[in-house]
């Protein structure tokens, strides 16, 4: 894993559920991102931390799509930004293609960013309104020395537009002249312009209309095949993530609670939170809606600046037990449940007992969550593009 892979390994479609330790493009180990909460008039005193990401291990293989789901405030966006080193991690390491990104500085880091690009949620907010599409697309290419030959650069622009399904006439237009879906296409073209290996897409379709979402999802799938890309897709919409991803990690309060191949996660969700999340997603089919049994979680998401002890989900968990849950933090592990794939990992002490029906759900009384004044998720909005961050 530490050896540098020079050539791109061709992704093997189909059987890639089990983690085999090879072919890993991104290797995240024990990553933590803590934001200090500061108070004070003259001296900023740190009075606490927001534990946005608190110990996550994950591996993304060449050519796969890794989906990260969770509710707002669970740290999924921060994790995505930490992988790009846009948010310097407090602890842990991110190895990309054999190189530890956290150890890179200055020019080396800037060069490495050519390989990792990002697609943002709000295409209007992430495209400079005063730049034409041509200049938007060329900016990244120039920064990485890919636009030295203007004829070749022009040909490349045409190729990019064709790949994302926009006419060549779009080059001289400005972002406001496009619809939301088209703007997202420009955002994708910009990410593609520097030939990245990994694209981190943070809520790529949630700002779009329902009928347009499918266009962008299909486009993401098409360009992945065409350019052999690896994706990290971050979204709150479980149905979108399941559709697009090969493997899915479910996050709750800064940590992964379950990780599995997309089909396994849907067929046999093992963690109580995953079960509740699955049962809460409305399905556009009245027959299913009438029949289904919902696991309604009570109360709110606890504050990430004051996370519960032990298992972070124990305050809302219908399967909570008297012992271990509130004292011991569960590790992500392969559970001993018959019929479950070895690639499925769960962070719950009682997975086996819950799966066998030994432990049953019981009602939970809603807990009042005190809101602590601190930075909100929206306050972490960073630069609109990677080149802007430099």
């Amino acid at each position, binding site marked *: 894993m530490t050896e540098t892979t020079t050539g791109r390994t061709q992704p093997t479609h189909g059987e890639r559920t089990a983690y085999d330790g090879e072919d890993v493009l991104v290797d995240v180990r024990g990553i933590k991102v803590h934001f200090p909460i500061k108070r004070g008039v003259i001296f900023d005193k740190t009075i606490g931390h927001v534990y946005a990401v608190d110990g996550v291990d994950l591996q993304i293989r060449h050519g796969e799509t890794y989906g990260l789901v969770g*509710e*707002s405030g669970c740290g999924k966006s921060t994790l995505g930004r930490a992988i790009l080193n846009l948010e310097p991690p407090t602890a842990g390491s991110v190895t990309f293609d054999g190189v530890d990104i956290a150890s890179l500085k200055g020019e080396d880091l800037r060069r490495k960013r050519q390989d990792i690009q990002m697609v943002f949620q709000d295409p209007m907010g992430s495209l400079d309104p005063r730049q034409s599409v041509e200049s938007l697309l060329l900016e990244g290419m120039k920064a990485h020395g890919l636009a030295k030959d203007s004829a070749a650069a022009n040909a490349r622009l045409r190729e990019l537009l064709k790949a994302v399904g926009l006419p060549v006439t779009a080059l001289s237009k400005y972002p406001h002249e496009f*619809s*939301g*879906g*088209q703007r997202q296409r420009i955002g994708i073209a910009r990410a593609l312009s520097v030939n990245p290996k990994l694209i981190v897409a943070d809520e790529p379709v949630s700002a779009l*209309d*329902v*009928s*347009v*979402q*499918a*266009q962008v*999802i*299909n486009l993401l*799938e098409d360009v992945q095949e065409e350019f052999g890309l690896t994706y990290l897709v971050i979204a*709150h*919409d*479980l*149905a*979108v993530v*399941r*559709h*697009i991803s090969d493997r899915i990690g479910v996050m709750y309060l800064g940590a992964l609670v379950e990780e599995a191949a*997309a*089909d396994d996660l*849907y067929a046999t969700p093992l963690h109580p939170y995953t079960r*509740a*999340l*699955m*049962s*809460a*997603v*409305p*399905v*556009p*089919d*009245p*027959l*299913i*809606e*009438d029949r289904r049994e*919902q696991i*309604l*979680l*009570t*109360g*709110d*998401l606890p504050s990430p600046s004051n996370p519960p002890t032990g298992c972070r989900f124990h305050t809302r968990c219908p399967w909570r037990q008297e012992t271990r849950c509130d004292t011991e933090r569960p590790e992500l592990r392969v559970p001993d449940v018959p019929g479950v794939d070895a690639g499925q990992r769960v962070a719950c002490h009682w997975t086996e007992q819950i799966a066998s029906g030994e432990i049953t759900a019981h*009602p939970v*009384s*809603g*807990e*009042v*969550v005190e*809101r602590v004044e601190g930075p909100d998720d929206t306050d972490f909005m960073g630069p609109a593009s990677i080149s802007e961050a430099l």
Partner: protein
Amino acid sequence: MTSMSASPSTHPSVHPGAGEPLLSVRDLRVTFQRQGQEPFEAVQGVSFDVRPGQTVGLVGESGCGKSVTSLAIMGLLPKHGNHVSGTVDYEGTNLLTLSDQEMRDKRGKDIAMVFQDPLSSLNPVVPIGIQVTEVLERHRGLSRKAATPVARDLLDRVGIPDPDRRLKDYPHQLSGGMRQRALIAIALACKPRLLIADEPTTALDVTIQAQILALLKELVQDTGTALVMITHDLGVIAGLCDEVNVLYGGRIVERGERHELFAQPRHPYTHGLLASIPRLDAPRGQRLQPIPGSVSDNLPWTHACAFAPRCSQPIEVCTQVMPELEEQHGRALRCHNPVEGHR
């Protein structure tokens, strides 16, 4: 929250969808006029009925006129810069002809509304308790002192834990889900017969959305309140509404009972929407079938079907004649070339 399920239903005899319509909207039109610009007709002749205890859904994408319809019904559109015509019949009174004072007496008492963003619909500098008692003082003539225990019970009813303490809290001290519950408590304070909910769960997380939808469903069943649910999410509609109206470009293009509509969508737009959404329960590996283009490709309804440029099966007449909304066996359809067969 556990106390809620134990509470007996107060109107067990109300049968959804029975009897005379409570609200009857006929040929509602809303035109926005801006200086130096062509007038824009956001709602172009929308008609539908809501019967006592019934849940009616208005579903469509942004810009289809669903929110403007609800604001026009409530008389909440600004007086200047727009023109509202048609009739909104609520128990024999045309709401559009009422004076501001008469409308204020109806709003919050007979008809209440819940909005998408609870933080901007609540007053940030007034405690939650006062905002609930305010409605009771205004419409039921209670004193602040008499209204406070009622407000406390209302907060308890919508599942806000520790209501005595929450009465003194300001909106920013509550989470998004709790704020939406508080807003529902305010809306239900005077036991309205009609509740209009405009995207009430769009700003919320999915587990919180499930809580709020369960709450709405239970309250509607227990109190016999009719509900108009406005949303873009077909999943929410599928689990909640008795009757569904699909809007496109300011007009209703299809209407039907929810089981029939979802099993056999006849308008290509409804059909296309259902085929384009990734479903949690669908087999993976299937490609989504998007609706091409975007709403900016729409044709004017006056001499064509607005959806024709994006339609999967347009015929010649679609770009020449506007299709009329035709009703048959409780279903309505506005299409020249409808989709045949089951989905």
